[in-house]
């Protein structure tokens, strides 16, 4: 529970989480296939464009997904969602007065390649106000979901942008206990990969849980020593 983020008060368990040892149920997980995805699924600039292009800063976001031992995580499903350039979400429950962009949907998805690499193209999201306190604003952010090799690696997080002054005032970013961990959610400007007269680029790497090694005993059925 993190009371500064008010919704967490009634939605956080009061009991401690239990920690049984992993079984086959936790080390396996869903497998996703390229044929589930469409050609423009990772291009948020074009995947909802109707009569023209969406308005806003054109961005490329790219990076690597690795496990905690540094091994690339290939074939992971990366799903992203975000507000438009004005901070408005295309969601029936969002009533913020900034307008919907008719050419921007705000979601995309992709699989990491054999190096754990992903890339997508989008419009930079705007900050938006929310009712946590009388004057609370989220920093610009992109939500990111990762489904990798094992169920125990399932992760949802948020990507922030280098230099945004709202990050340090955000009660959601502040639910993370260490400043180094908060910094690991900040995508960095990557000007050497900008596309001149087209798009700027940000780099964002993700680290997932690694498979715990079993050195001296091996009780997962069938796994080799």
């Amino acid at each position, binding site marked *: 529970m993190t009371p500064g*983020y008010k919704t967490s008060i009634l939605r956080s*368990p009061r009991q401690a989480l239990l920690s049984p040892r992993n079984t086959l*149920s936790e080390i396996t997980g*869903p497998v996703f296939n390229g044929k589930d995805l469409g050609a423009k699924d990772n291009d948020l600039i074009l995947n909802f464009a109707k009569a023209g292009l969406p308005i806003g800063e054109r961005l490329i976001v790219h990076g690597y997904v690795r496990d905690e031992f540094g091994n690339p995580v290939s074939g992971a499903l990366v799903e992203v969602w*975000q507000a438009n350039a004005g901070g408005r979400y295309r969601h029936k429950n969002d009533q913020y007065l900034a307008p919907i962009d008719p050419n921007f949907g705000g979601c995309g998805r992709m699989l990491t390649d054999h190096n754990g690499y992903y890339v997508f193209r989008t419009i930079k999201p705007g900050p938006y106000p929310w009712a946590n306190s009388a004057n609370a604003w989220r920093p610009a952010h992109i939500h990111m979901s990762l489904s990798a090799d094992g169920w125990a690696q399932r992760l949802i997080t948020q990507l922030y942008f280098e230099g945004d002054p709202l990050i340090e005032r955000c009660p959601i970013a502040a*639910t993370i206990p260490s400043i180094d961990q*908060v910094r*690991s959610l900040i995508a960095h400007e990557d000007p050497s990969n900008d596309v001149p007269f087209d798009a700027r680029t940000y780099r964002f790497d993700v680290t997932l849980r690694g498979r715990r090694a079993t050195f001296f005993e091996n009780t997962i*059925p069938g796994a080799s020593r």
Partner: protein
Amino acid sequence: MNVAHQFAAQSLATRFPETPSQTGGPYVHIGLAPQQAGFEIFEKNFDNNLVSNDTVGERITIEGRVIDGSGSPVRDALLEIWQANAAGKYSHHLDPQDKSVDPSFAGWGRTGADFESGVFEFQTIKPGPVEHNGDRVQAPHICFVIFARGINIGLHTRLYFDDETELNAADPILSGIELHTRRSTLIANRRSENGTTFYTFDIRLQDTPDGGAETVFFDI
């Protein structure tokens, strides 16, 4: 590779910190269930129906609600499930059990709770028992993860079935819950209606004013 080499190689490896979790937020549907958010964007959408005509096994419908500490349904929750097939085999390369994969059953599904009622539903099959570490057997179960506004890190739990009394009693995870009065929070209740088998599974994030007990959650 022998044990000594493996030990040396892995114990000297640099460990990088895991990327921290953040809440999925109230608009999690935009990315994970865009049709529920109110728009069409992908040709193929992930959903809560895990079965096709060819899937082997007993058809079941799982229904329930996620309930907060005031007793109110969490109407913006997003849930995913992961389960073995009817033979108790996961459709995954790391499952070494000598059982056959069902090519028409991937074992994964996703849904949002209904924005009005807070009810969620999955169409699936009842899974078979899965081997546990060593020579024990896990009772049939379905892994759940819950994301929502106000939940900073996805909550993991398991659904077990109330008509599997013997296997449940021997299940290493259930029987490992020290406070045995909490075990019943993981057991779904079976009922039949118009030829459909339902299991009801309500997930309580905290004890509720009506006397409902907080569901057991796992750090997996």
